[in-house]
């Protein structure tokens, strides 16, 4: 199979156009940067001091986009991400009672928040899941969205040992569209499942022994007939999810800080928003199985950043990230084009922007031998750079045993 040259050429042209159009915005403070710190950020940042040229360069050098993770995914549990938590144990209530218990366990009798709490729940399924049959799900878009909307809650302790403060976060994650939803477009599999007979019941058990015997027979039926036949159906008819499906996912999270750890002393903190949309060229011959475009935007506002190199040791920062990636390939060839834009604003210093373009192509030369070529460039995060991007600021090639792009 070969790639279509037309779209590829267009993508490269688009990449160059973005690079040329990009400009650093040093020296242009924004309204957000001039805004007063929001309440609820502890004592709040110290008054900003003016940065000299060396200081500006030091600050800027920390914000090179190439050093950032160009991550286009939306976190499944945004509350955990919002407070930087990677919980070992996540409570996933499945019933209203379990949910209530999880919430009650988050606060003690004196009103102190318990730290280390991480709860992730799909509210619609907890309260209405018993009413949602597969037919309704398949017919109702709103049911699909509600069934795939989760909320997360988390608490974490303040930084110091004697710091009584507690940080809380609440988030929501929703899949608004997913072409690869396994409950949809799987008619052949459902038909196959439908042909499996149910466990036959010939008589009502009248004694405990008869009851136990019936359960043994049920277990045998499940083990020797139902499960093997389901496996056969899956093997034969399960629609393999495309790697390049079309979807749209959104998420948001907000945080609060309680300086005393008491529920009554909550102040608002940062807010985060994420959205990713992918397009798998559905219905486009030649691209449907081989290409995908992902667009991503996220915004983090009122983030309190503590860093001894910052003026006053901390600042309130707003960050916006916009990224896109086009991937295409076959089992012997792959290419990826990535573009990203980062903008940071904070009170008392110029707006920082950075852009990145990267292009990677690889070709299998023989089994376990791939030629990988990439080039790209970064710009911005440098007060002296007002001339846009140098597209060919990096170029490399390598021979590898495995493909580096995740296209089939």
């Amino acid at each position: 199979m070969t790639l279509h040259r037309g779209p590829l050429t267009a993508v490269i042209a688009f990449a160059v156009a973005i690079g040329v159009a990009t400009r650093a915005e040093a020296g242009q403070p924004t309204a957000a940067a001039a805004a007063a710190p929001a309440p609820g950020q502890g004592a709040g940042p110290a008054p900003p001091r003016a940065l000299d040229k060396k200081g500006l360069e030091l600050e800027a050098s920390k914000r090179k986009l190439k050093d950032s993770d160009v991550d286009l995914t939306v976190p499944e549990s945004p509350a955990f991400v919002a407070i930087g938590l990677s919980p070992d144990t996540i409570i996933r209530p499945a019933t209203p009672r379990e949910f209530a218990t999880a919430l009650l366990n988050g606060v003690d009798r004196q009103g102190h928040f318990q730290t280390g709490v991480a709860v992730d729940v799909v509210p619609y399924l907890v309260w209405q899941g018993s009413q949602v049959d597969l037919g309704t799900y398949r017919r109702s878009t709103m049911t699909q969205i509600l069934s795939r909307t989760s909320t997360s809650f988390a608490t974490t302790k303040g930084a110091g040992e004697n710091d009584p403060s507690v940080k809380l976060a609440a988030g929501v994650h929703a899949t608004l569209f997913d072409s690869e939803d396994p409950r949809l477009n799987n008619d052949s599999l459902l038909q196959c499942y439908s042909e499996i007979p149910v466990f036959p019941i010939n008589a009502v058990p009248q004694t405990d022994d008869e009851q136990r015997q019936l359960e043994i027979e049920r277990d045998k039926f499940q083990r020797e007939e139902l499960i093997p036949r389901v496996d056969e159906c899956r093997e034969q008819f399960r629609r393999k999810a495309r790697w390049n499906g079309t979807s749209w996912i959104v998420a948001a999270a907000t945080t609060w800080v309680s300086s005393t750890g008491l529920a009554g002393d909550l102040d608002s903190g940062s807010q985060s928003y994420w959205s990713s949309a992918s397009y798998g060229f559905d219905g486009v011959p030649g691209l449907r199985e081989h290409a995908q475009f992902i667009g991503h935007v996220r915004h983090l506002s009122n983030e309190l950043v503590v860093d001894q190199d910052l003026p006053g040791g901390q600042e309130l920062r707003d960050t916006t990230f916009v990224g896109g990636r086009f991937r295409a390939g076959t089992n012997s060839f792959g290419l990826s084009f990535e573009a990203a834009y980062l903008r940071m604003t904070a009170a008392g210093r110029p707006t920082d922007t950075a852009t990145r373009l990267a292009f990677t192509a690889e070709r299998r030369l023989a089994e376990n031998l791939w030629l990988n070529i990439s080039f790209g460039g970064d710009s911005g995060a440098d007060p002296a750079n007002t001339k846009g991007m140098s597209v060919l600021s990096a170029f490399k090639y390598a021979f590898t045993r495995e493909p580096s792009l995740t296209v089939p």
Partner: protein
Amino acid sequence: MAITTVRLKATDGPPNVEIVVGQSQFGKYEIQLFDTDGRNPVVIGSGLSHDQLPDNFQIDGNAATLNQRFLSWSANLIPMGNERNPRFSFTVHIRQNGQDVPGSPIATQGPLPGPRAEFGFVKMEVV
């Protein structure tokens, strides 16, 4: 497993049985009516959770003739999604005049890590 007793009213007309396979999982089910000895089953309804056909079935005849008879259900439940912890919910409603009779609904729920054969019984008492 104790067999639940549901109480029907002789004067309230023929009862209706509805099956709800929740949590958007695949379900195929069959409902049977037994005699007072718990034998001689007759299939009174069957269905699928994903089609557009109604999942409720009327037990024809005079409610009084159902006294001390048994109703059973048997279902294949198969997880359909890719959730971390798939669950199932299986509910049997027995109604007269549109209202659940005493003892109904009979609901079961829990984790569904793989295909499951679910079954149960009720004894009908007519008052």
